[in-house]
């Protein structure tokens, strides 16, 4: 087993996969608590479908670097969705449902109309479940993921106190003069970046799991925001590491393996939380 692992580590693409996977897992766990508690988790879900649509556009256009299209489109929709959510006239969740199903249908149609390879079903499956894409990263992909991850982590650390304030009590924050709209915009943008990043790792259908499970695990055991944040970050990285290693050794799809490890950890944390009372 160990020999096999060492042999695999000799390949650069495996090392890339590990580095990028762990970084992405870290990023996606950071805003989990905010997402869950602000009821933004459905926005995350909608956005991942938008990202799928954007990705299929990029695939059809045969771009070498798909991020150029996927990232800006997802950010724009994140901001639009947030705006819609604040608009009481149009129900926020209905708008999101419309958008996400629409993007999904549009993306699938595009990929069938303009197949970029002979295996459309395989392509679609890859974008939805991320199957092997983490092992086929180029050095450029690794750099982009690395830089985006660092940006997300830096923003999170710098604005940690503001994010806490805005998430815990938006009205109070507003009343004492914090620019709540600005920070909501920041949160939406960061969520969009995280989703685009995570799509590389687990595919667009499993992103929510990567974002939400570490936060839920941490919340069932820990009771302060700081501890919850640290625990979800660390546990998410460990789960990603194990998930990738298992998937390499056993040959299971990367994304679903990572998510399975996350789910198992959640089960354990939930039980611990229950037993502690």
């Amino acid at each position, binding site marked *: 087993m160990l020999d096999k692992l060492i042999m695999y580590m000799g390949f650069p693409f495996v090392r890339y996969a590990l580095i990028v996977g762990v970084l992405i897992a870290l990023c996606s766990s950071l805003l989990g608590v905010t997402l869950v508690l602000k009821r933004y988790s459905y926005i995350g879900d909608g956005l991942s479908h938008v990202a799928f649509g954007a990705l299929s556009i990029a695939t059809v256009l045969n771009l070498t670097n798909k991020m150029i299209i996927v990232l800006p489109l997802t950010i724009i929709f994140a901001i639009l969705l947030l705006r819609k959510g604040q608009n009481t006239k149009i129900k926020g969740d209905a708008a999101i449902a419309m958008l996400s199903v629409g993007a999904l249908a549009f993306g699938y149609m595009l990929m069938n109309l303009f197949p970029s390879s002979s295996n459309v079903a395989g392509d679609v499956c890859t974008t939805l479940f991320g199957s092997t894409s983490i092992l086929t990263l180029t050095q450029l992909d690794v750099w982009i993921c690395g830089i985006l991850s660092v940006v997300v982590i830096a923003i999170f650390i710098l604005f940690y106190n503001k994010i806490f304030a805005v998430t815990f009590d938006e009205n*109070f924050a507003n009343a*004492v*003069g914090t620019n709540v709209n600005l920070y909501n915009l920041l949160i939406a943008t960061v969520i969009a970046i995280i989703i685009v990043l995570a799509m590389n790792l687990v595919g667009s259908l499993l992103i929510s799991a990567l974002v939400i499970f570490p936060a839920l695990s941490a919340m069932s055991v820990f009771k*302060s925001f700081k501890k919850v944040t640290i625990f979800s970050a660390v546990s998410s990285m460990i789960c990603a590491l194990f998930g990738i290693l298992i998937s390499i050794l056993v040959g299971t799809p990367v994304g679903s393996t990572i998510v399975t490890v996350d789910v198992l950890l959640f089960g354990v944390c939930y039980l611990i939380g229950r037993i502690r009372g």
Partner: protein
Amino acid sequence: MAVLTAKELAVGYENQSVLENINFEINAGDYFCIVGENGSGKTTLMKTILGLQAPMSGSISFGDGLENNEIGYLPQQSVVQRDFPASVYEIVLSGCQNSLGKGFFYSAEHKKLAMANIKRLGIEKLKNRCYRELSGGQQQRVLLARALCATKNALLLDEPVAGLDPQVTTEMYELIKQLNDDGLTIIMISHDIQNVKAYANKIYDVNTKEVRNVR
């Protein structure tokens, strides 16, 4: 001079006003109470004072050294915060967010202020406890400590004793009176006319739209 003046103020939502012709003046050191039945628009008025929503018409002006982001605010209990994993200390410290300005992290002074207000409200023992596991009365104290971190001058309290038992209610009122004696201007919404009469010096009734001087 008044710290807060409402002139021909109307408040409401989306072109529909819930309360009109509001006129009052609050002076520094006042204990100003707003009374009225459920749904009469008290919370709406308070949100307008805080600048969370714009007045429908008329004006609110601040004076005498009070700025609108220097008011400590104790919201009417909301359910949103119920599941939030946060310690008492983290929540009280977040009251300092307005003095953070362009900075990113809380300074030693901020932390000292948070601790001082935790002591002032007698919740040191709860400092590391999780907010969602506290009783209603304890939660109110935590939010009050947070509000105190946000202000040196004025506190706005939206039904601070709602849902508290009689003994804790009395404690809460004594606490607020103490803060008022220390020089803070108190603006409070309440249903509890009996107690309000004993503590406040001005009562504004949203039905009659008149200010009564009590003391």
